[in-house]
């Protein structure tokens, strides 16, 4: 168990990496002095989770890749990565998620996982599965969980990534599960694969996958083109997203859990989940610059993996969340959602605004347009 003093009390990480936030009434039991809390209140808090790119090398030609990677990209030196792990551990970060490029391309991946563990961090990694062998998998048991990118059966994968990698993903799932490593699947939702999500969930659960992580398609890197507008979910699909989640949970639990990423939280705005419920169960919306932090392959800090260092600094995310305009200002889940995905709003509208694909924002914008038309008509 690790405990981190905060101004409100503390964050506690249990052995299964569950995070629990407690108030000050727990401090004495957890062995935290009031002076630690005073110290925490006087400083800015560290992120809970950090996403670290360890290589710019990747052989997969994914059409929507958000990173500047290539087949001959460079690896971050092990010494640099160890210094990063030292810094994250000293700051009190709990989870370090390794990405790339393709992390498996890095020759020191197994050691990085063990070194992170030794520093009290929870190491996890995301992979395409390219290059994974039985022998390599056996060296990766230091990781708490490994997620394999798999965007859908029956062509769903190719629809998102532009190449037929489904068999690579399913082979990686098989190898990792046989090695006894907890395996999750990252599934990026697009207009084209949305209808296959439930069938894909059943398929991967049967293969031993323990967790399905749904991700919103984001206009960054190679995906920051006009094609994004044709690949993003339709308003009709977004409207059905909460009910899709309910069906997935009903069908797949308890063998496989379901997670959604921060950028999908705005799509819950119409589902009437009480904000208190979302907060109590640790649902995170846009946590860029707060609970989330990223380090790219050049070693630069970023608000999140998708955020341009200069155009979208952490302060921009925090300023928007602190004082959002309507309709976020009056939204019931504002404190959890934090305004939706700024990568999307920056791409679609050229500025940090309320998420333009949120159903509530779309309805608000439609009313404003209608009112403006009435005034001019």
């Amino acid at each position: 168990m690790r405990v981190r003093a905060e101004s409100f009390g503390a964050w506690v990480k249990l052995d299964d990496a569950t995070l629990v936030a407690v108030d000050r009434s727990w401090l004495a039991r957890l062995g935290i002095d009031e002076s630690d809390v005073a110290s925490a209140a006087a400083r800015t808090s560290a992120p809970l989770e950090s996403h670290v790119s360890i290589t710019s090398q990747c052989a997969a030609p994914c059409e929507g890749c958000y990173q500047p990677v290539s087949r001959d990209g460079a690896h971050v030196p092990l010494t640099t990565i160890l210094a990063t792990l030292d810094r994250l551990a000293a700051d009190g970060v709990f989870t370090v998620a390794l990405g790339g490029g393709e992390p498996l391309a890095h020759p020191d991946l197994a050691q990085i996982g063990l070194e992170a563990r030794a520093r009290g961090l929870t190491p996890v990694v995301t992979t395409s599965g390219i290059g994974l062998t039985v022998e390599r998998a056996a060296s990766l048991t230091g990781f708490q969980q490994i997620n394999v990118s798999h965007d859908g059966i029956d062509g769903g994968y190719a629809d998102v990534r532009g190449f037929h990698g489904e068999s690579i993903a399913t082979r990686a799932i098989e190898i990792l599960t046989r090695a006894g490593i907890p395996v999750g699947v990252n599934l990026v939702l697009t207009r084209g694969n949305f209808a296959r999500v439930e069938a894909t969930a059943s398929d991967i659960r049967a293969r031993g996958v323990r967790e399905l992580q749904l991700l919103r398609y984001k206009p960054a890197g190679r995906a920051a083109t006009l094609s994004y507008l044709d690949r993003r979910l339709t308003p009709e699909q977004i409207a059905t997203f909460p009910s899709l989640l309910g069906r997935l949970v009903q069908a797949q639990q308890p063998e496989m859990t379901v997670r959604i990423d921060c950028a999908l939280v705005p799509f819950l705005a119409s589902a009437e989940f009480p904000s208190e419920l979302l907060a109590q169960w640790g649902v995170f919306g846009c946590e860029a610059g707060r609970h989330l932090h990223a380090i790219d392959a050049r070693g630069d800090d970023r608000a999140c993996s998708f955020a341009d260092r200069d155009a979208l600094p952490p302060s921009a995310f925090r300023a928007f969340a602190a004082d959002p305009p309507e309709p976020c200002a009056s939204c019931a889940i504002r404190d959890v959602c934090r305004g939706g995905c700024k990568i999307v709003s920056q791409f679609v509208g050229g500025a940090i605004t309320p998420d333009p694909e949120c159903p509530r924002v779309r309805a608000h914008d439609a009313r404003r347009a209608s009112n403006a038309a009435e005034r001019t008509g």
Partner: protein
Amino acid sequence: MTDATDDSIDEVPTSGELPEAAGILSVRHGPGANCSSIGSAVEILFLSATAGAAILAAVAAVLRASPTASDAAPDSATTRSAAGTNRLPEEIPSVDGGTAP
């Protein structure tokens, strides 16, 4: 220092009517393993209040049973570690309606 963030989950509600879980502000299950965006488990949103209370009670029991920080050396100014096993039960209660949309 890692690129600083503001803190404050002060707005997170308390655990309400469950005395043994009083003061537990938020429970965030598992680490996830995505390296590009932060993920959150959603099963619990579809559970009944009874099942949710059971999970809170389990979390409280785990916390109360854990060795306190005085049993272990600090590994940074504001972070403490403690030995021993402390994890939630593997089983998540069955979905039985609750707040499903």
